[in-house]
């Protein structure tokens, strides 16, 4: 579904990604793990065209090279950004409405809203509350719900567990699992290696802008380097 071929990206003179190639197949959930500053967020920003990149990015065989950032979502890619980035002074429902901003999404707003509310009943309770007043876990639900409002094929999740209490992290990971079961393809970036490897099919290890290894979740959980560097075993 999503293919990256030799993607490089830089911020000024600092190169953040070096020839990254990866693949996400339809129906799969894939994680990109790695330490702080490895380029994980940059990778998702590159896919969403929020930064300039070189190399090939294609969605369902169609190149995103000449696609501006605001049209990427029309190709079925929806991005939950780092730190959730809700609109704090809009209500929960208005935030969800922004997720359905595309003209082709507006007609199905009511139907999708119902779906998001059935997925997150808490959001229905809080629908007219300002998003800035939600708890961290609720904000993450709202951010994921907002990204689902466009009816995407591929969901990009940037550190959904960041800044959340351990028990909330657990429920967010359950949620990611459920979203995969609903039929969404997911590419998730995480520092919380142990927990994310429990919910995804495959993973790539990204270090200092380069893919260092990849495999199924089970393989990576067993691999010596990952056990030592990221799981503390």
């Amino acid at each position, binding site marked *: 579904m999503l293919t990256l071929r030799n993607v490089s990206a830089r911020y000024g003179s600092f190169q953040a990604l070096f020839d990254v190639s990866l693949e996400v197949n339809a129906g799969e959930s894939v994680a990109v793990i790695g330490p702080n500053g490895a380029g994980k967020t940059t990778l998702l920003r590159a896919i969403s065209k*929020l930064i300039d990149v070189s190399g090939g990015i294609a969605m369902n065989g169609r190149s995103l090279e000449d696609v501006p950032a605001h049209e990427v979502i029309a190709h079925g890619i*929806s991005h939950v950004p780092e730190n959730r980035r809700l609109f704090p002074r809009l209500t929960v429902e*208005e935030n969800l409405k922004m997720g359905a901003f595309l003209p082709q999404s507006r007609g199905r707003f009511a139907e999708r809203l119902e779906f998001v509310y059935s997925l997150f009943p808490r959001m229905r309770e809080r629908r007219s509350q300002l998003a800035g007043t939600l708890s961290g876990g609720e904000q993450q639900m709202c951010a994921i719900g907002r990204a689902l409002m466009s009816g995407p094929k591929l969901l990009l999740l940037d550190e959904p567990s960041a800044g959340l209490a351990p028990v909330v992290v657990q429920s967010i990971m359950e949620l990611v699992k459920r979203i995969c079961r609903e039929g969404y393809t997911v590419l998730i970036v995480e520092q919380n290696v142990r927990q994310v490897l429990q919910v995804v099919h495959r993973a790539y290890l990204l270090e200092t802008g380069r893919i260092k290894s990849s495999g199924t979740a089970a393989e990576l959980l067993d691999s010596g380097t990952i056990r030592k560097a990221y799981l503390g075993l």
Partner: protein
Amino acid sequence: MDVFDIFLLEAVLNGILLGGLLALLSLGLNLIFGVIDVVWICYAELIMIGMYAVYMLHVQLGWPLLAAMAAGVGIVAVLGALLHQFIIRPVLAAEPINQLLVTGGVLFFLQAAATLAFGIEFRNLGVRMAPVAIGEMSFSAPRIIAFAVAVAGVAATYLFLTRTYVGTAIRAISQDRQIMPLMGADPDRLFVITSAIGGALAGLAACLLVLQYDIHPAIGLSFGPITFLICVLGGLGNLVGGLVAAFIFAQFISVGGFFFHIEWGYVLAFVFFIAVMFWRPQGILGGK
């Protein structure tokens, strides 16, 4: 009622009428600052262009007044969009002082252009309306019309910003500019739309002012400073604060003018403004 009480009540009601007009004046400027983070120092000059547009179409070309006014709103809306596209957009990432200087340059350009095109003589539409008498009080008809239309304009803007996708997106982009593309919204397009709305509000204000005031190339200087001060008083970029500040300012001008002299009303309003700036430099409802 005592004669004094009646005159006081009349002054208060006149203040409310003026408040509606000032609220409309400040809304466009405030909206643009709140969303794009740029102060259009030349905002009142757009109003001046709108007044000339209505005058030229109605008096020189003989269009019906309402048609001339509708065209005036449209012309200033387009002018607002062009101002953003060609003047603001290139300096969007520049220092605030540069943005201020650029729009300040547009102010003098528009004044000079109007002087060249229309000369310095005062012009007016020549519309005369009988005052409206309520009991023993009397009110100017253009002021009542201005109040009603201004309230309708503010209400329409509110409904647009809260009920439509594009309006909600305009509020959203004022809170987080970088991630708007992830929603499928083109920030450049939202900024142009916001600027056109700001222009349309200036055009609407022009239609109301042209019924009450003579037109000349420097007329913007009569409204510009007070419009800007109202926005600052309410909390720059805070739309509700701007509306509240407009009505407070109008009462100072109207009631203060009643107790002393009309010029004193303005003095009191500005003294109040300075006092508030000491007490709450972020404005009455400003959060920062």
